[in-house]
Structure formats: structure tokens, C-alpha cells
């Protein structure tokens, strides 16, 4: 029986019987950093074809969201790209705000920008240091993760959690940044450039790393576009598409930053683009802090929308309106307009879109999440065809495919 199966898979080539091996890479393989299964057809070390399976950690987020009031969907978005959950959270808040037609005060916008750029840095830290690990350089990973820890401590100071942040609320932030949080932000801004520089010294012009990553898992700009790649992976192929510039949200149009692009879309390009984006993010955070300091208003951290933003507790205890709004918001009984909105943010690894249809009920009628990882993973089999197995691992980590976001 078994031999027959192998026979079926063999190709006779010039009188020699050729035999392929089927290799199960995943679903729980330490090298794939998540639950991915790929059934590979191998010719020795060369991949002939790959068949990815998705859905191992599918948690039906879109369906779950149909039964949750809007504010309860934020914790769900945490669990998509968990390397940069604040971006997901704020993308969702902004989507709802767009549906409700809320204007955010400038201060909220800038505070959001700070948090989102910190999240982008932490996302890129994970991705780039893991590229190092998969190409055999564990050291940089350890140094960079110390910095990621600092970012997590900033989140912790603001929202109380490190990974699944649930940060911010519809209409602003749950609380203002306290002094400790500011001190941690400034400390991070002071210390991070040196570490990043050191990491670059370790890898960027290191011949071993360059030989290993150049021409590994390339994708052309045309292919990338037709797969509808976005984010660093598309920019690595040479297309300067960035949602923050093309479709600004949260006052991004006021910030001055470059869009780093690559040339060939291989692993080295993706690494370099992310590396440079971290520098740009740092500069954006500096600009945002400057703008915050220049603002006259130093205390607003949420928009004045009593229908959607929870009133302060003393108001709940002491005033009728406060109590009514509190109950109405928590029970999800506030009036939501009918309509459809699409809002996208530049997530850690691409355009993260929320397509929200509301029928005026307490929950979304339908929510579609445009997850960039889902799109990258479609191109993965094509990108690794004909490459070595170890290059396939490297390609996967350099695209930063996150299982939680892939399967949603």
C-alpha cells in the first residue's frame, strides 16, 4: 500500500526513478513560531511544492464580534497580531469613531500616535530579531528583547497589561499617561537608539547574514501587488505604499517621516525596511511629544462624548445623567447609526482593515477584519517553491506571519 503511494508520486527521469519526500512542517514546529502547517513535497533539501493549512487557531472573531457590543470587541482585536495589539485596539476604536462620526481632540491623536509607534517598534523588534535567530544569530535577539520589555512596561503603566493590552477606549484613552509612564517613554527613547545601532552593527553589514538573507524568498513588486501585499513586505519589494501617508488617520498627515523601501523583496530587504522603520517610528514619537508639549491643552485624554465614553465614577454616583449613561453604555444600549465603514491602519505588518456594517443594533451586523498575514500566507507557497527548507523558515519569519492574525 505504502509503496504504491510512493510510486504514484515518483517521476521517472531519464530512466532513473525519482522519489519525493512528503514532509510535515508544523503545525507545532518550533521553527515556525506559531501554529502553521505546511505539507511540503521535498526533493532532498529542495521544496517542490508546499500546501499550507490555515485555521489551526481560528477563533471565529468575526462571528464573535456579531454578538458583542462595540466596546467588548477591543479585547478580541488584541488577540490578532499580538506583537502589536495596541495598533489593533486603536484601529478598532477609530473604526467605531468613524461610524459614529466622532472627532478626536488633537491630544488624543498624538497620544495614540505615540502608542501606535511604540507598538510598531515592538512588532519590528520581534520580527527582525527572529530573522536573526532563524539565520543563526541568537545574540541580537536577546539584546533587542530587553527593549521590547521596556515598551511592554509602558503599556502596563497606561493600561495595566503587557501583551493583551485592551488599551484606549472608544472616544479616547481610559486614563491619562501618568508621570511614571512618561518617564518610561523618555527612558526608552533615550536608550533604544544605542541598542538598535548595536543590533545593526551585529547584523546589517555582516557577510554571513547578508549571504544568508539576500535572494532568500524574494517576491517582485508586481506579484506582491497582485497578491495585495501591504506594509513592510510590499515596501521591501519597492512599492512605497504606507497607509499612514496614503490615507492618514489620527493626524498622521502632520508628521514628517520617510517611507523606507527595498529593491527585490527578499528577506534582507524586508529586514532592512523594518530596521529603518524603527528609526522613523522613533522620530515620529519625538515629533508627537513635541506636538503634545506645544498643545495648550494638557489634560484632555478623551473626546467629550457622554453617549459613548464612560462618565467618571463620581458622576455616576452623584448625577442622574452619569448613572444613566453608565448603564446605557455598559449594556450596549446607546444609539448606533446605521451604516457601513471601512477603516484601515498601518499595522505592524501591513494594512489592517476593519469593515464594519451596522444595522443600528447593539452589536455589529457584520465585521470583516482585513488581516495582512492572511494575505501574505497565500503567497507563501509560491515564494518558497524551489528554495531550501531552511530558507523557507527564514522567509516565513521575515514576512512576520502571526498565527493569531492569520486565523483570526
Amino acid at each position: 500500500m505504502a509503496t504504491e503511494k510512493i510510486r504514484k508520486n515518483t517521476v521517472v527521469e531519464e530512466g532513473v526513478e525519482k522519489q519525493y519526500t512528503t514532509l510535515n512542517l508544523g503545525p507545532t514546529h518550533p521553527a515556525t513560531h506559531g501554529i502553521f502547517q505546511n505539507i511540503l513535497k521535498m526533493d532532498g533539501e529542495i521544496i517542490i511544492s508546499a500546501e499550507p493549512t490555515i485555521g489551526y487557531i481560528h477563533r471565529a472573531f468575526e462571528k464573535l464580534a456579531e454578538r458583542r457590543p462595540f466596546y467588548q470587541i477591543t479585547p478580541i482585536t488584541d488577540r490578532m497580531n499580538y506583537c502589536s495589539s495596541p495598533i489593533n485596539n486603536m484601529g478598532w476604536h477609530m473604526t467605531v469613531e468613524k461610524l459614529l462620526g466622532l472627532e478626536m481632540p488633537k491630544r488624543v491623536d498624538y497620544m495614540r500616535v505615540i502608542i501606535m509607534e511604540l507598538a510598531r517598534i515592538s512588532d519590528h523588534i520581534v520580527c527582525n530579531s527572529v530573522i536573526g535567530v532563524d539565520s543563526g544569530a541568537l545574540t541580537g535577539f536577546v539584546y533587542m528583547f530587553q527593549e521590547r520589555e521596556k515598551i511592554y512596561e509602558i503599556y502596563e503603566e497606561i493600561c495595566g497589561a503587557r501583551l493583551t493590552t485592551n488599551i484606549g477606549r472608544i472616544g479616547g484613552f481610559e486614563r491619562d499617561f501618568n508621570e511614571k509612564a512618561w518617564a518610561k517613554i523618555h527612558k526608552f527613547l533615550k536608550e533604544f537608539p544605542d541598542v538598535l545601532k548595536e543590533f545593526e552593527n551585529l547584523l546589517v553589514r555582516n557577510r554571513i547574514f547578508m549571504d544568508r538573507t539576500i535572494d532568500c524568498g524574494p517576491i517582485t513588486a508586481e506579484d506582491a501587488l497582485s497578491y495585495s501585499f501591504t506594509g513592510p513586505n510590499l515596501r521591501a519589494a519597492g512599492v512605497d505604499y504606507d497607509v499612514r501617508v496614503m490615507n492618514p488617520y489620527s493626524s498622521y498627515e502632520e508628521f514628517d517621516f520617510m517611507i523606507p523601501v527595498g529593491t527585490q523583496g527578499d528577506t534582507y530587504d524586508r529586514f532592512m525596511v523594518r530596521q529603518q522603520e524603527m528609526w522613523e517610528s522613533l522620530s515620529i514619537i519625538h515629533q508627537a511629544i513635541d506636538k503634545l508639549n506645544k498643545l495648550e491643552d494638557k489634560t484632555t485624554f478623551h473626546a467629550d462624548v457622554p453617549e459613548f465614553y464612560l462618565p467618571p465614577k463620581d458622576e455616576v454616583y452623584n448625577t442622574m445623567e452619569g448613572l444613566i449613561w453608565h448603564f446605557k453604555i455598559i449594556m450596549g444600549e446607546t444609539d448606533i447609526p446605521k451604516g457601513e465603514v471601512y477603516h484601515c491602519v498601518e499595522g505592524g505588518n501591513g494594512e489592517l482593515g476593519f469593515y464594519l456594517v451596522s444595522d443600528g443594533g447593539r452589536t455589529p451586523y457584520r465585521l470583516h477584519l482585513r488581516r495582512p498575514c492572511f494575505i501574505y500566507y497565500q503567497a507563501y507557497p509560491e515564494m518558497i517553491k524551489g528554495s531550501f527548507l531552511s530558507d523557507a523558515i527564514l522567509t516565513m519569519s521575515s514576512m512576520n506571519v502571526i498565527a493569531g492574525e492569520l486565523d483570526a
Partner: protein
Amino acid sequence: MLTNRSKVVVDKQMSFVEKLYLPAIIGGLFITFKHFFRKKTTIKYPEVKRELSSVYRGQHVLKRDEQGRENCTACGLCAVACPAEAITMTAAERKPGEEKLYREEKYASVYEINMLRCIFCGLCEEACPKEAIFLTDRIVASDFERGGFIYGKDKLVEPVDNDKRIDLSGRLQAHRKLNS
């Protein structure tokens, strides 16, 4: 090019020095070597514990007021707000003579949080109109059985003794600031 902001950041040509493997290897080793003499960033958990932020979202507590009465009035708002549907409760009416135990006429005779379901989002704390439930900086301990993760009032309600109360002053201060 879609914008005028793009900047090519990749240079794949190696110079002569870069083509020699050794300089990069020695440079890398030098960086690693320098780190031997830096301050350690790791801490010796569990002997040493990191200071968590005052608003850290860990295991819940059901508060008592200054006189030791339970604050919770079993209104169920926390259960409604819970996205993980982790909270269940049964309401009961306060009998005469129980005024020392419960602050309001209605109280929760059963209040359970399933810590396996809970995602520590903090929405219950935000929803509570009685300042009864708070998340704290304690971590939920692991257990061998699933049943052990269903925390009833025995584990959730704080002790009556004043010196065993759970200190939430930092947390309340952060909340008050939020409110000002």
C-alpha cells in the same frame, strides 16, 4: 513610486572589507564581549519580584467598605460587560441582622469568576457602579484541576481584618485622576 517620501535603504554591494568574513565576526564577538560587563537585566524570580504598575490587571478582588460590609449589590453589570462571559452570580435579599455583612439590601450570595475564561481585560472593574470589583496586581496561581479555577466568594472577597485588606490606593488614585 506613489509618494515623494520613499527612500531606498538597501545596499547589497559588499565592500572589500565586508567581503572578508573575519571583520564582521570579530566585531560581533566584540559586541557580545562588551555585554559580559554590563548590568544584568534579568531578575531572580520568584525570590525577587518586579514591581508591577498600580493599574496592573491581575486576579480580582471583591471589596468591602470601611465597616467591613461587602460592596457588591449583585447588579450584574460586571457580568454584562464581561466579553468572556466569565462571571456568574446569584442575588439574594439581605435579611434583618445582616446589615453588618452587606452594604445594600441586595447582595450576591454566589459570585463566581471562571479564571480560565477570564481574559483580564478589566471591563468588569470599569463597569461596576459600586466600586465592588477590582483587578489587582496579584497573579492567578496555577492549579492541577480545572475546577480549582472557578473562584467563588471565598477567594474573591477580601478579608474583613483591616490589616489583611487588599491595598488598592495606587489603583484608586489612578482612577480618580482619570475622573478629574
